[in-house]
């Protein structure tokens, strides 16, 4: 099962192994509307089945508070792996982990393969 949703400011892909991959453009600040749209995209891709999601935070400049809250409590993700690299993306990821208190397992990775492997552990 594969698929692709092109959002206003993101691209979402359902890859062969059943996980959803998100790609954001460089320098984006993810707003609440972006978050809602991205969650809808996941639901579309997975048929409302909670699925593992890989989010590439490396090009993201900021995620506002409402967006973080949506990501932290969405029912459409079973676990989230956040790809980080720069001090900025690490800070955003760590703040998400500690301040937003997500209801599903979330982990930061600087290695994409490791992230995908961890996501596959959920299957």
């Amino acid at each position: 099962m594969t698929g692709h949703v092109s959002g206003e400011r993101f691209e979402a892909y359902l890859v062969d192994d059943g996980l959803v991959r998100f790609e954001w453009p460089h320098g984006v600040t993810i707003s609440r509307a972006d978050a809602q749209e991205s969650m809808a995209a996941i639901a579309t891709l997975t048929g409302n089945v909670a699925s593992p999601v890989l989010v590439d935070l490396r090009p993201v400049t900021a995620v506002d508070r409402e967006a973080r809250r949506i990501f932290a409590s969405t029912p459409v993700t079973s676990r989230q792996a956040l790809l980080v690299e720069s001090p900025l993306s690490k800070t955003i990821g760590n703040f998400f982990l500690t301040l937003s208190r997500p209801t599903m397992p979330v982990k930061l990775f600087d290695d994409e393969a490791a992230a995908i492997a961890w996501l596959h552990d959920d299957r």
Partner: protein
Amino acid sequence: MTGDDDPVGDSPPAVTVDDRLDMLLETIVAFAALDFSRPAEIGSDGDILDALAAGINMLGEEVEASTRELEERVVERTQQLEQLTHDLRAEVTERRRSEAAVRDAQETLRERLADVERLNREIAQLTELTNVLQVCATRQEAFEVLAQTAPELFHGTDGAVYTFVPSRDVVELIASWGVFAPPATIGPNDCWGLRRGHLHTVEGGQGLRCAHASSDSNGNQLCMPLIAQGEVLGLLHLRCTTDTDQEHGRRDDATPHRSHERLAVAAAKQIALALANLELRAALQAQSIRDPLTNVYNRRYLDETLARELHRAARSGAPVSLLMIDIDRFKSFNDSYGHDAGDTALRHVAVTMRDQVRAEDVVCRYGGEEFAIVMAGVDTAEAAARSEHLRAAIRDSEVDWHGQPLGTITVSFGVATYPHHADSKADLLRAADTALYRAKDSGRDCVRIYVPPSEVT
């Protein structure tokens, strides 16, 4: 790359690390002042300063959100507290109102209980008074009972009880209590209660004041006529002054007066009924022992009196004389003038004899035109002398019948004395009757003393 590195000069000046740190510091200062309108700029490098800016921004967002939530909670709590305060005030007000209502109800209940207790006490006293009055044998005895019981019954008042004296057309004082000096008599026109025939009150010195009422009192007064079967028998007068109230520790309101009114009306009815019963009893007794035509005692009373006096004489040894009197030629008198004139003659003889004898002598109509007089303690000689005196008085008197003289009326007397002539009632009656026949045989209009057959010549 910095501005210094731009040889053309059309690129914006390069931002130094110090500049970025200053901007972050300004953002932190603004956030500290709760001004979150200008978050820190995050560059495209994603370096440590960008990370710092992002972190500061996210912390600012959290602080702003927390502050907003806190303010919302404060507003919400404040509203809750205000509502709670309002509810509490309403509850306190309601509770105070309820407590006041309970206090009022308790006070009312206490007053009602006091009223009931007072009413019970009054009913008990009134019942006792009624019971005692019912067994009184005479009006005088009833008056004495009233004099003793009224002060207690009308405790806390000055008062007086009056009885009606028909012959003088006044009510006369029979009992009084308290500190005032009631008049000895009250004329019917001096009392509004007597004039109107029902309760008359003067409250707080206001209203029609009776002429007999003391003018120095500004308190409550009431006059309740004693009326039974439509006839005024007396008057109950009560006075309740402020001084009297204070003296008895009463409250200065209308309650005592109202209760006294109630009691006065009830007591007046009972007293009047008792007095009426006594008068009725006295009238019945008089009817049973008196001859209705002549109003002297009847034969039944003669039998009782003679028997009683003979018993007394048997113990004391004193004589008892019996006089039998018969109007001479009464039948021809009736035939000449008619029965109405005959009745007038009978009344005239009866009244003349009653007026001439002693108070303790008992004049009776024995039957028809025959009378008898019992004279206790009187011997034969004195009885004969008194008989002679009576006979002369009757003969010398003039009888007027509807303005017409009926002529001279004469009577004959027979005298017998216990124990000289007889030792029993029957024998004494027989002896006096025998003597009367002798007087008739002697030509009438004379007095004859009984002579035993053995002494008759």
